[in-house]
C-alpha cells in the first residue's frame, strides 16, 4: 500500500471515529430532502466580518468535514446559488448546548488528495 493510499485510509478513519476520536454524528440532507447520517468533524466558532466599511459585525464560521467516499451517490454536492432550487443542508447537535441546528451548504472545498470534503455552512431558518 502506498503512502497516498495510507493517508486516504487514515483520514477516513480519523473523521469517522466518534468513539475515541473527534468525529461527530451529523446528517446530510439533499435538495430532495433525503437524509444521510454521517460522521465527521464539525466546527462552529465566532468570526468577525468587515462588510467593507471598517466596522465589524460578528458572526460564526461553521463547517463540517466528511470523507468523500461516504457521500451519497447522485447529484454533486455543492453550494446552491440558484434560488429557484432547493439547497443541500446539514444538521448536527452542538457539543456544548445540545441544541440541534440546521445549516445550508453555501460552499464546498473538496480535497481529492486526502479524500475528504469540507462543507462551509451558514445558518438556516427553520428545518
Amino acid at each position, binding site marked *: 500500500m502506498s503512502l497516498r493510499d495510507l493517508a486516504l485510509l487514515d483520514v477516513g478513519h480519523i473523521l469517522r471515529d466518534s468513539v475515541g476520536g473527534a468525529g461527530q454524528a451529523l446528517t446530510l440532507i439533499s435538495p430532495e430532502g433525503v437524509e444521510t447520517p454521517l460522521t465527521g468533524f464539525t466546527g462552529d466558532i465566532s468570526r468577525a466580518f468587515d462588510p*467593507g*466599511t471598517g466596522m465589524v*459585525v460578528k*458572526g460564526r464560521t461553521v463547517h463540517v468535514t466528511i470523507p468523500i467516499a461516504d457521500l451519497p451517490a447522485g447529484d454533486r454536492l455543492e453550494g446552491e446559488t440558484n434560488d429557484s432550487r432547493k439547497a443541500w443542508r446539514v444538521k448536527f447537535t452542538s457539543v456544548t448546548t445540545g441544541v440541534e441546528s440546521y445549516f445550508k451548504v453555501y460552499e464546498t472545498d473538496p480535497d481529492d488528495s486526502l479524500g475528504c470534503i469540507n462543507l462551509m455552512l451558514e*445558518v*438556516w*431558518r*427553520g428545518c
Partner: protein
Amino acid sequence: MPLQSLIDKIDSFEFVRDQIAAVLVTERENQMDLAARAGKDSFFWGLKVYSERDKAYEDWLNVGNDHRQEPIVSTIMKAAVRDPSVSTVPGVKNVYDGTWWIDVYGRGIASDNPAGGHVTSDAMAHTECHRGVRLVRNILAAGPNRFLGAVILDPATGKPVEQPIWAHPNIERWEFFGPEVEGRGGSFSVWGCRLEFAVRFTEFSPEYEPVILEELGVTVRRTEDGVVLMDTTVT
C-alpha cells in the same frame, strides 16, 4: 495665555451628532407606530440605531436563526472642512461643512421557500440593506427634518426667526460594500451601505476677555439756539 472662562458648552458638531441619532430613533418609533395602525408588520420599519460606536457589533452573533433582525444603523462623524469664504477671523467664528458616515447593515439568512426553491442569504442581505437605506434616506431627507428638528420658529408666523447654526443637511453620496473575498463566508450574509450625510454648521470659540481701561460717557444735546453740545464723563 490661559482662558479666563470655562469651556462648558456643547459644540454645534456635537449637537448635530446627537440630533442625527435622535431624528432616526424618533422617526423609527413613529413609522413603526404608523405601520401597526395600518395593519402592517411594523418590524419592516424597524432600525437598530447606534451613534459614535466602533466596537464590533455582536447583535447578530448569538441570536436564533428564526429571530428576525432589523438593519443596523451606525452614525459616525467623519470630517469637517472649514469654508474660509464665510468664516470670520480664524478661531472665533468658523463655518464648517461636516460629513457624517451613516452605515447601514443588512443581514441575510437562508431559508426554504414554500413556493419553490429557497431564499439565498446573500440576496436577502442586499434586500435588507436596501430597506434600511430606504428608511434612513427618507427620514433624513424629509422636509420636516431639514434642520434636524432644531429650527427656531416665530410662534406668530411659524417661520424661522433665526438662521440656525446648522443647515443644508443632505445625503451627498452613498456606496454599497460587501465583505472581502475571504470574509464572504460565514454563518449569515452581510451587506453594507455608507451614506455620506453632509451638514453645514458654525462653531464659535472663546475670544479675548476685554479689559476695561476707562469708561467714557457722552450725552449729546442741542441748546435752545441750536448749538449741539456733548457732555462727557470719564471714569
